[in-house]
């Protein structure tokens, strides 16, 4: 094992009965077709597992107070008996998984089965294809670099800078590896060359020229060309999703600051796919732990404890969505549909309720289908493609809204379209506003203009003000944010010391 040594001074391997259990679980999992890399299980007491969880799964992270805050919260939660972490697994090769040492034997088997599901997902989901599987080393590396900067700059300046970077941590491009956003430099250079050579005329003989290339056409061509030239002189040429990268490349940052920001961006990009596939990943792992436990692993004496544990995992609280529950149910739903052949044109075209209810072509394609789904989909496409009206009804899903007059949340609709719409909007960009860089040289003064793509919900202005303040510190020049409040265009400005809002109605002005 490559990572021996720098983990825990007192790392504990598995006791013999769990080594045996691991061999058994993995053999069964492989039998079902799960495909995973080597898994290294570590036993931890609850302080250790809480620590690792507060570090996001990696025992060596750069120093920062927020790990301490998360740790305190988890420790208190455990001490007060409010929550418990059974297991933690990270996406590396080999994959490390941490087990709580006072779990019962049944819990440990369940967790091992669950973990093989996760690792299979990490290994096969195409959304993880570009993640760094040596992240354990990378994180330790990051930690060493940050510590070096702390030695040179002092604790507070580095920490303050990290805090500011974390403000824009979510403003990265989660599809970075999957979509090519901009044309490469050389391509646009070539085009620029051709544009500068004058108006492009359609080929025509001289006596036909004024018919084929009439003055209006030439004028339109010229206007188009001017527009393109203008576009090209803008900076950036088109709006950018990756605000963090833009600030990193173009902000007024010292060398150490660039290094620290690069580290935070790397880690944010590493974690992005996990956030994008939360429902699928948990659903997949839960699907496999139930399948393996109930069919292969469970002893008679463990049934009650197992049922208790499993129902705790998939329990729904009114007013919120449990990714474990939605994920596992949706996978089962897909499996059943494909087993019965409930897909394709004939199924979709059928309007007869009775026929549809009894539809069963004995296609038996369910298992294969869910393996395909886990390879290609992320949460958004998973819901978009497989959430059906039946499913929404069976699961009792509804949308809720805040009732301003009554002062509480109320059930808004149980209608399929509404539920799906809301789920998708919650999942896209993880329910955060989408922010773009629209001008890196605003008013030709090197100021940064960000634009919020308004999708019906207003931003929290106090938070926006504080965030903008941090962005201004990072950028080194004044920054502006274009957004909407109460359907009116509002521009927020921050120059690092002072905040101003244009277009805001009096009543909504922030208090601070």
């Amino acid at each position: 094992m490559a990572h021996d040594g720098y983990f825990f001074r007192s790392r504990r391997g598995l006791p013999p009965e769990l080594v045996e259990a691991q061999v058994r679980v993995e053999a069964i999992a492989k039998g079902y077709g799960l495909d995973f890399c080597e898994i290294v299980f570590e036993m931890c007491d609850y302080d250790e597992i809480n620590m690792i969880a507060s570090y996001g799964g990696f025992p060596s992270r750069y120093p920062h107070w927020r790990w301490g805050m998360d740790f305190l919260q988890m420790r208190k939660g455990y001490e007060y008996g409010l929550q418990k972490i059974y297991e933690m697994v990270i996406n590396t090769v080999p994959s490390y998984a941490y087990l709580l040492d006072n779990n019962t034997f049944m819990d440990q088997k369940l967790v091992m089965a669950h973990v093989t599901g996760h690792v299979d997902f990490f290994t096969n989901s195409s959304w993880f294809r570009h993640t760094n599987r040596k992240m354990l080393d990378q994180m330790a590396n990051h930690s060493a670099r940050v510590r070096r900067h702390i030695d040179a700059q002092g604790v507070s300046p580095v920490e303050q800078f990290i805090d500011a970077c974390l403000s824009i941590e979510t403003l990265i491009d989660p599809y970075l590896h999957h979509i090519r956003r901009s044309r490469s430099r050389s391509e646009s250079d070539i085009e620029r060359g051709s544009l500068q050579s004058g108006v492009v005329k359609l080929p025509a003989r001289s006596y036909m020229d004024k018919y084929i290339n009439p003055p209006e056409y030439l004028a339109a061509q010229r206007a188009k060309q001017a527009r393109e030239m203008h576009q090209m002189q803008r900076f950036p040429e088109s709006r950018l999703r990756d605000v963090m990268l833009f600030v990193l490349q173009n902000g007024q940052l010292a060398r150490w600051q660039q290094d620290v920001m690069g580290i935070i961006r790397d880690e944010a990009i590493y974690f992005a796919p996990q956030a994008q596939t939360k429902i699928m990943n948990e659903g997949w792992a839960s699907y496999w732990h139930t399948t393996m436990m109930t069919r292969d692993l469970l002893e008679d004496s463990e049934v009650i404890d197992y049922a208790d544990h499993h129902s705790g995992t998939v329990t729904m609280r009114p007013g919120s969505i449990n990714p474990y529950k939605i994920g596992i149910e949706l996978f089962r739903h897909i499996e059943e549909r494909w087993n019965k052949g409930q897909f394709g044109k004939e199924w979709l075209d059928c309007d007869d309720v009775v026929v549809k209810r009894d539809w069963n072509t004995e296609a038996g394609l369910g298992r294969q289908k869910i393996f395909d789904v886990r390879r290609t989909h992320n949460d958004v496409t998973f819901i978009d493609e497989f959430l059906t009206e039946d499913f929404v009804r069976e699961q009792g899903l509804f949308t809720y809204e805040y009732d301003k007059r009554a002062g509480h949340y109320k059930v808004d609709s149980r209608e399929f379209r509404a539920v799906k719409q809301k789920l998708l909007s919650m999942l896209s960009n993880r329910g955060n506003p989408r922010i773009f860089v629209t001008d890196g040289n605003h008013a030709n003064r090197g100021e940064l203009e960000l634009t919020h793509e308004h999708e019906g919900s207003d931003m929290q202005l106090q938070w926006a003000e504080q965030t903008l303040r941090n962005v201004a510190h990072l950028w080194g020049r004044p920054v502006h944010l274009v957004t909407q409040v109460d359907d009116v265009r509002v521009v927020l400005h921050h120059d690092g010391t002072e905040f101003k809002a244009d277009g805001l109605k009096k009543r909504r002005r922030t208090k601070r």
Partner: protein
Amino acid sequence: MILNIENDLNRFKEIVKGKVRKDLRRYMSSGEMIGRQGNRRVSIPLPQIGIPRFRYGKNETGGVGQGEGEAGDPVGEPGDGSGQAGDQSGTHAIEAEITIEELAEIMREELALPRIEPRGSKQISSQRDRYTGISKLGPEALRHNKRTFREALKRQIASGSYAPARPVIVPIKDDKRYRSWKTRPEPQSAAVILYMMDVSGSMGDEQKEIVRLEAFWIDTWLRHNYKNVETRFIIHDASAKEVPRDVFFRTKESGGTLISSAYTLAVKILEEDYPAAEWNIYPFHFSDGDNWSANDTQACMTLLEGHLLPVSNQFSYGQVDSEYGSGQFYKDLNQRFGDDERVVTSRIPKREAIMDSIKEFLSNGK
């Protein structure tokens, strides 16, 4: 094993205490952890520092839930949807049942509240024995059989005299374990909490919810400190009346506000039912700080000075900001009783301030 986290934890604690990085204090809030007490959910305070990010307003987006209910039915407070990046841990929130005792212990720890000293020397605490531990010596009547046999089993296994096929376990003297007790002072005294609330038109639902939450925690703490706690509820607008608990938190009246009406009724209740020699008396008054006239405020001051303060352990006034309230009463009280230890005033502008305000109310140990 040395946990790397200790450094980060200490750093966080220092920031919370305000020793370093004062710039971060502005993002601090008392976060919470949800537990359950009977049928209601209680939140346990935890200091938190939020990193500012662009995000939607709290009530802007709504969401998707699962369960019963028709369109229009209320749903419980949805959980904060902001998951931690990369959080793959199998964390299960357990809906824990918490006893009043545990809650009070949590409060003491989180808010560093001192134990309340009951007033007057007459209120002597009684002694009470509690069986809390195990010892190797004791009378046979207190023998702990399970522990004794466990010790015997351990010894036999260690010495090799245990035969799994024929499990005979015979404890010897060294194996014997006895229940041991500790003598603890138990407060014997009784207390009455008198809640008064302004229900005039300017107090909205949010304001009442704040009062409800605050009252819950005050109850918890005082019940922890006194054996018998009685609660009485007075609502007032221009006139005051006594109501049962559930009515107290639901009533919505309109019209003016005469605070003195409530104080007069409070004095009457205390005189009739709660002689100051036998009771620890805690009047709490919640209002948005608008009184009808300066004359009435004057009358309130006289009532406080002459009747309420002499009999009370502490008079507490909590001001819940509303859109219409001027907050004048808070200023008036502070002007008059600013130096008087018996009067504690606190402002509660929003839910997040509840914990701070409870701390203000209860940290005197009176």
